[in-house]
């Protein structure tokens, strides 16, 4: 695994900033009534998607969750296409048919945000099977929440990946809540990573607010998978800064002790400090990246707002492959 060099550092900060800005825009657009349905925001958890995807190429696949914007951005999905998608425009990555919860771009190895909790887990196992079958060195990475770890698909998916030694990395985002239900109530084990024992794979819990820690742990697991040594489960401890969905009053949140500690942290600022200290980025670099990201997201909004809505006929298209 490569250490974070200047180029990597730039990439990481840029993706983190893109996620922050994109999510801030989505929040505003939703409040203005421009986005139908639900919006689940990821900002605050961006260290995980970026730390992991920093190791991936377009040949590698990821599966995502209903909170998928961050994973899409980190996997290289086009911001314009994403914004157009959540506004329901025909220029959206899914032609306006999927929306926020189903953004996907197979060409970029992004197998979809997912409206079904735990839905991506076995799909990632399947992508891993494909990699092994075709003898590629590609890996599949599955992002999933603490809530999802209680679905049957988690247990079945990890077992299959383990018995076949598939190149899959399971990245659990433990943000402490599944909707209004805390992980500590919903899970029989204190950590999710200790469940790895049952499936005979390495498991560890790491600081999911620290992009460097995520980068290092994911790098090891991805190397292991590429070498044919099988799957790994990594639990990234983080915090869901936003409501479950926009508009959620969050009456169930405690915001004390460890929760408050995590809530008060800012992964982006922490990484900036790190990069400055390690001389990976200069202050000027940081400013430029921020500016660039703001511009890119604004451009995406303009593009989306100026795009037309889907043609009526498209309702009937893409049900079957022709």
């Amino acid at each position, binding site marked *: 695994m490569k250490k974070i060099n200047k180029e990597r550092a730039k990439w990481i900060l840029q993706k983190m900033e893109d996620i922050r800005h994109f999510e801030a825009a989505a929040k505003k657009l939703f409040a203005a009534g421009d986005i139908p349905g639900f919006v689940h925001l990821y900002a605050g958890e961006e260290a995980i998607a970026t730390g992991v995807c920093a190791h991936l190429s377009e040949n590698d696949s990821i599966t995502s969750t209903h909170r998928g914007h961050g994973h899409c951005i980190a996997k290289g999905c086009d911001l314009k296409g994403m914004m157009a998608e959540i506004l329901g425009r*025909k220029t959206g990555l899914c032609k306006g048919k999927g929306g926020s919860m189903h953004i996907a771009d197979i060409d970029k190895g992004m197998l979809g945000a997912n409206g079904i909790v735990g839905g991506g887990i076995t799909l990632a196992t399947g992508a891993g099977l494909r990699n092994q079958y075709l003898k590629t060195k590609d890996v599949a990475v599955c992002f999933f929440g603490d809530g999802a770890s*209680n679905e049957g698909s988690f247990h079945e998916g990890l077992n299959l990946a383990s018995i076949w030694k598939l190149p899959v990395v399971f990245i659990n985002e433990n943000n402490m809540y599944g909707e209004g*239900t805390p992980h500590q109530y919903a899970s029989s084990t204190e950590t999710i990573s200790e469940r790895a024992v049952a499936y005979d794979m390495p498991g560890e819990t790491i600081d999911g607010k620290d992009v460097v820690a995520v980068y290092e742990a994911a790098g090891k697991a991805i190397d292991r998978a590429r070498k044919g040594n099988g799957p790994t489960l990594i639990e990234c401890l983080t915090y869901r800064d936003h409501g479950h969905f926009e508009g959620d009053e969050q009456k*169930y949140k405690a915001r004390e002790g460890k929760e408050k500690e995590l809530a008060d942290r800012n992964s982006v600022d922490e990484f900036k400090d790190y990069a400055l200290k390690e001389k990976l980025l200069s202050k000027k670099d940081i400013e430029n990246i921020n500016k660039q990201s703001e511009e890119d997201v604004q451009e995406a909004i303009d593009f989306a707002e100026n795009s037309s809505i889907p043609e*009526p006929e498209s309702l009937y298209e893409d*049900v079957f492959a022709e």
Partner: protein
Amino acid sequence: MARQITMMQAINEALEQAMDKDENVFLIGEDQSGGATVEHLEEENEDAFGGVFGVTSGLMGKFGRERVMDTPIAENGYMGTAVGAAATGLRPVVELMFNDFIGYCLDTILTQGSKMRYMFGGKAKVPLTIRTTHGAGAGAAAQHSGSYYGLFGAIPGVKVVVPSNAYDAKGLLLSAIEEDNMVVFSEDKTLLGTKEVVPEDYYKVEIGKAKVKREGTDITIVTIGKMLYVALDLAEKLEKESVSVEVIDLMTVSPWDQDTVIESIKKTGRLAIIDEANPHNNTATDIASVIGDKAFDYLDGPIKCICAPDTPVPFASNLEQLYLPNVDRVMDTASEIIEDLKQ
């Protein structure tokens, strides 16, 4: 003035009255109270969520967490648990947040609970109510907007109820909870906020009975759930063209009320069915086939099924509106019928 409350409040009231009446009734599902470990909520008789739509709100404060149970996100786990509890004497009311999540827990409904009574020679009963939501129109896209009541209706041993208003919702839910069978109670998520006059007392609406909502002589339109309002709008429009429409709210999708539908066709000679589900192997096609078989002689023209298109539910608002059967779309079919009537 008679009290008007929303469908959501009516369902909540039914749950409260059923729980008051029978200690074996309890609620189980995701975020039924929400914040399962937050103590102050209990003290203040409040819930963080009350189910994600807020339908079970306030019940945890009154009945405690033993009777308003939050579950992990584990549909197969809690649905199976509910089946097991029902088969051994309790009366669980499960909330499956969106009917689209049925994939995870269909097994316990299809191959376990629904078959127990039959397989066990009539010795078991499974008094289980499954509350769930269906329907497009909320911008929730393909994995949260399906209408799968027809799919449940295809399972022997399962009754399926789809209320169109707050009054029927309360009465049907109380009937469902008292039933010794598995009942799927499917709420259209876009109707939950609609108001109706609802009595405060405990009353039941019979499962398996349809209601004639508007009398007419030229054509019968059978509707399911929200489609009732499409038919009523259409009936108004057609009245101006001197076409008299009889509208039937089916209310129970399985077993559906053949007598009421056939009686109506005897009078009108024509049938159209509006069903928001996809157009094949659904409730509409079931009705058409049964009527074709049993009431062919009373028909003066072809049966028309007006359904959603044969596609998943799209996200973009304009496409979603096209997806839903609405008055304009139904008008096309109506015009054909009018032409037919004139001949």
